[in-house]
């Protein structure tokens, strides 16, 4: 695809105010918890006090009898295992026979208000048989089965604590390691961190029974008047309660592990009638289920609600209001979404559940703690030869995205540097802690930290400036990585140059006084994945556009607006292509009943895929309009342009008509004006080996960071003064939003580097497995005062496949922030940080060790600085 040059674009490439900016600055923007419905009940979830225990019995009778309580559901009501990855469905909306972390959901109550629901939770009697728990991933991986594994082993004799093992080798690692001039080898530890979006998870369920054919199908089919609103005033007494949603599958509940196996196979091979339809059987719950949720993945939620609650997917509607931050923390279904659905089905009333801040910490799905061992070799000239990685991922209680995380821990390291030989051996284990999942820069932030610190060590050993070292190893553009990922556009060298210049690198590196330092790191990231989470041939993103005779264009978009600006993106594209002002575009988004499918806001896929889909739809419409105008003027279509609110005849632009008239001409000719557009990823570019599809992306972004720090040699306090971040995002479609993504990424990486840790108590310090700090006071995230000055430097490589040349910007810019800070600390005081976070006690210990070893001090300047390749 060839792209227009910058001068031919009117709106694309220029900073545009967000179309919802006014609503957001006046408090009118609507998030899920801002919604309320007549008769709405409030739900609460009872959570396990044990890290690992069998559920012997659950008695909800006293809770049900409490005045004001409308329904209670337990695991037995929804005994259908699910999981975001179709091959690892290992959790239930509410635990069926086993709890696996402190905070695991056991029962949910719907009551007239939250206080009553909380009181009802106290009345639920759960009998547990406590089991020995695993907290340390090393213990989990070495378990011999003498105590129960966290999940049943897939095969007899296997370790049930292991989620996934991946071992891949490319090239001859040992031979090239042996022939390397320099080899460095170290252990690294990346502490777990969590997303903490400021908006807690929230969901509302509503069940509208099928009054025509509802009777006998288990739905609450006989609600008087059929109207939720009218019925809301009755206070519950006349509500006809439906059967529990999962009752059809109750037979499977006796043995949760048996139930695990069959749906996994079923969902891996979706039937032709629709991916989420339960195979071989029609859903038994007739009626319509609507769930509003603060989710990043309305489509996957839609599928799983259908499957777990046994409602035909055509009868499920997911609505996504604006989302108040997500960062990966809302990218799979959560217990509350199933519970509001089940409770709404049982009560016939809308039911809302809003997580407390503490529940958000327990819901987690954040960054995995990684134990990493890296060995990297290069030759005398600093050319990388061989990389050998062994990684243990601490996954928490459930698989979540863990299968992908395990692959990503190795697959995404192979750019922007050419690596002739590479091996990674990654194992993800379960532990009795909240499940880990994807957080901004999924699975590849941790190895990037270790690797970029190793590169800094190698550069020092061969006497090269670390920026020069990275330049020498640049992989190039339009090439393949050692693990066969296809690289297209690549602006990494420009990124390096941008941060080098902006930071004043050459005057600062190894040249500032003791205690002050500067460090560099680079990285790459995907712009979405070529293969969707469940195998299918359908487009990854689609939009529908409709032109009104008033001149207004409506865009129906299934994409997830989580603050990144995808609504503004499609508005910009529609306005650009159809020549109308941006405020003539309405974006109607996030409702599975009337928008086409977009797979969600994850993997940095939205701009690339939604953008291409929007261009596709808009250009189809543009052609209809231009052809109609050309016929009317009796000129060639190629001579008609839509721009600035007019249709113009290019040879003589005094010949023009308002675009509204052009739309009317086209509507008169074609009838109602609408078009769909879609984008699907290339399916023929990936590695020819098992796992070779994971990490394959239509385009890769590239980033370089330079961080400047001050380290107090007496206390170990690290003060990050400035971060320069240069990011190759292909083309910046809306530069102010790209900057926002870059700054937000650098900020989040900075927080992880210095202060954040999602950790749990051990038996010596309270209750083992209890979250150490489930609050925003103790889980410290940076404030306006903590955050350093961030300078964003946009690099545009103009990708051949991206929309107008764009690639991702949402996650890539996070990766180098942590190693850049680590390398800057080394430049400041000569201490190599190998464990996160770089908190004062940790740095202080490093300083003491260096003092004892006599290595404390400013490291020597590279002997070959500035040597040309």
């Amino acid at each position, binding site marked *: 695809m060839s792209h227009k040059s910058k001068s031919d674009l009117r709106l694309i490439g220029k900073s545009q*105010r967000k179309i919802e*900016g*006014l609503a*957001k*600055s*006046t*408090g*009118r923007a609507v*998030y899920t*918890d*801002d919604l*309320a419905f007549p008769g709405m009940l409030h739900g609460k979830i009872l*959570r396990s*006090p044990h890290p690992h225990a069998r559920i012997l019995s659950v008695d909800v009778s006293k809770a049900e009898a409490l005045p004001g309580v409308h329904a209670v559901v337990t695991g037995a009501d929804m005994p259908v295992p699910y999981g975001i990855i179709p091959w690892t469905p290992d959790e239930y909306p509410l635990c069926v026979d086993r709890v696996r972390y402190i*905070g695991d959901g056991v029962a949910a109550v719907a009551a007239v208000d*939250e*206080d009553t629901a*909380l*009181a009802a*939770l*106290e009345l639920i009697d759960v009998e547990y048989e406590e089991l020995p728990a695993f907290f340390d991933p090393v213990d989990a991986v070495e378990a011999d089965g003498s105590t129960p594994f966290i999940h049943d082993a897939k095969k007899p004799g296997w370790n049930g604590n292991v989620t996934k093992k991946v071992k891949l080798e490319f090239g001859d690692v040992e031979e090239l390691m042996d022939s390397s001039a320099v080899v460095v080898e170290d252990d690294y530890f990346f502490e777990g961190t969590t*997303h*903490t*979006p*400021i*908006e*807690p998870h929230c969901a509302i369920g509503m069940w509208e029974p099928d009054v025509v054919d509802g009777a006998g199908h288990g739905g609450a089919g006989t609600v008087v008047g059929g109207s939720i609103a009218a019925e809301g005033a009755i206070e519950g007494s006349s509500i006809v309660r439906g059967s529990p949603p999962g009752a059809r599958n109750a037979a499977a509940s006796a043995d949760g592990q048996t139930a695990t196996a069959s749906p996994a196979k079923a969902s891996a091979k979706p039937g032709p009638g629709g991916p989420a339809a339960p195979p071989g059987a029609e859903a038994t719950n007739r009626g319509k289920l609507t769930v509003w949720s603060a989710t990043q993945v309305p489509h996957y939620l839609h599928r799983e609600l259908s499957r777990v609650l046994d409602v035909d997917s055509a009868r499920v509607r997911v609505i996504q209001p*604006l*989302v*108040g*931050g997500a*960062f990966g923390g809302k990218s799979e279904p959560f217990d509350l979404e199933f519970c509001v659905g089940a409770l709404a089905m049982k009560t016939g009333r809308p039911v809302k559940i809003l997580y*407390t*801040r*503490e529940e958000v910490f*327990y819901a987690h799905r954040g960054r995995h703690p990684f134990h990493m061992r890296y060995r990297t070799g290069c030759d005398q000239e600093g050319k990388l030869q061989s990389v050998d990685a062994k990684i243990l991922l601490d996954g928490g209680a459930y698989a979540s995205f863990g299968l992908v995380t395990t692959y990503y821990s190795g697959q995404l390291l192979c750019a922007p540097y050419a690596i002739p030989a590479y091996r990674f051996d990654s194992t993800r284990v379960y532990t009795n802690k909240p499940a880990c999942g994807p957080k901004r820069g999924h699975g590849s932030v941790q190895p990037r930290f270790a690797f970029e610190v190793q590169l800094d060590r190698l550069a020092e050993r061969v006497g090269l400036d670390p920026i020069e070292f990275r330049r020498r190893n640049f992989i190039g553009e339009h090439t393949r990585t050692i693990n066969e990922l296809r690289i297209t556009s690549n602006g990494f060298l420009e990124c390096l140059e941008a941060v080098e210049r902006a930071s004043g690198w050459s005057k600062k590196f190894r040249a500032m006084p003791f205690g002050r330092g500067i460090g560099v790191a680079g990285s790459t990231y995907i712009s979405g994945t070529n293969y969707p989470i469940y195998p299918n041939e359908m487009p990854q993103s689609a939009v529908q556009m409709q032109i009104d005779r008033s001149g207004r264009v409506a865009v129906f978009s299934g994409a997830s607006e989580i*603050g*990144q600006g995808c609504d503004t993106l499609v508005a910009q594209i529609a306005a650009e292509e159809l020549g109308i002002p941006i405020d003539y575009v309405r974006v109607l988004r996030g409702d599975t009943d009337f928008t086409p499918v977009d797979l969600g806001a994850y993997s940095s896929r939205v701009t690339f895929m939604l953008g291409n889909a929007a261009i596709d739809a808009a250009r189809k419409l543009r052609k209809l309009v231009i052809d109609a105008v050309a016929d009317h003027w009796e000129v060639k279509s190629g001579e008609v342009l839509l721009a600035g609110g007019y249709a113009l005849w290019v040879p003589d632009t005094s010949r023009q008509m308002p675009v509204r008239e052009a739309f009317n001409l086209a509507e008169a000719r074609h009838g109602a004006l609408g078009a769909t557009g879609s984008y699907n990823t290339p399916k023929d570019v990936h590695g020819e080996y098992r796992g070779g599809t994971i990490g394959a992306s239509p385009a890769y972004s590239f980033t370089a960071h330079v961080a400047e720090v001050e380290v107090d040699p007496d206390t170990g306090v690290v003060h990050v003064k400035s971060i320069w971040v240069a990011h190759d995002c292909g083309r910046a479609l809306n530069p*102010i939003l790209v900057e*926002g993504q870059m*700054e*937000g990424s*650098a*900020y*989040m990486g900075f927080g992880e580097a210095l202060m954040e840790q999602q950790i749990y108590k051990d038996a010596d310090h*309270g*209750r083992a497995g209890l*979250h*150490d700090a*489930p*609050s*925003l*006071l*103790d889980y410290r*995230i940076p*404030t*306006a005062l903590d*955050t350093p*000055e*961030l300078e964003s430097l946009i690099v545009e490589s103009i990708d051949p496949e991206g929309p107008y040349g764009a690639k991702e910007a949402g996650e890539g810019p996070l990766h180098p922030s942590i190693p850049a800070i680590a390398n800057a600390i080394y430049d400041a005081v000569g201490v190599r940080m190998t464990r996160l976070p770089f908190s004062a006690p940790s740095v202080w210990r490093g300083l003491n060790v260096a003092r004892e070893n006599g290595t404390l001090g400013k490291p020597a300047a590279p002997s070959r600085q500035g040597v040309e390749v």
Partner: protein
Amino acid sequence: MAEVEVIRVFERNVPRRSFIKGVIAAGASVSSAGYLFRSPGLLAATSLQGSTERLVTLRVNGQQRRVDVLPQETLAMTLRYKLGLTGTKLGCDRAECGACTVLIDNVTHYGCSMFTHQVRGREVTTIEGLEDADTGALHPVQQAVLEEGGFQCAFCAPGFIMSMVGMLETNPNPTREEAAHALSGNLCRCGDYQKILNSAMRAAERARMA
């Protein structure tokens, strides 16, 4: 188990927010155990000793609002769920994130950490009350936020905007660092602090011109 029990007893007898404030004042950290297993005892109480009249008149955004308020109800709850002023957000409900920041007599407060009964007779301003009542014109802070492109998901935006308004009441000429101090009681997880501070500085400039 023991720890859980202790905290339950503790929470039943002490108003939760007083407990948190006490802990903060003492410089200690809030225990992690307290919340997950919190008892509904306090929240579910239908009346407290010496409780006051429930139907109260509040002055919100320049208007008198009659509202039925439980004794233990927080201002944020009343604003959001009784008065429909959902611009005020709840991010933590325990004085940590600042999303619920409102002005009481022109001074910033966390709406989650005040009982509604405490604001009787005082002037409450929420994000919905910032626009000029006569002309509908945006407040200079709102205008500045729009111009600087501040905020991404913007869930924290109302709280930040109220903090900026409160800051300008006391310090119409802040330096960037003073603005960062004034806004350090609000958390933005999108990490948009650069643009938020740009907005604050521009807002000060606009307010001076107005």
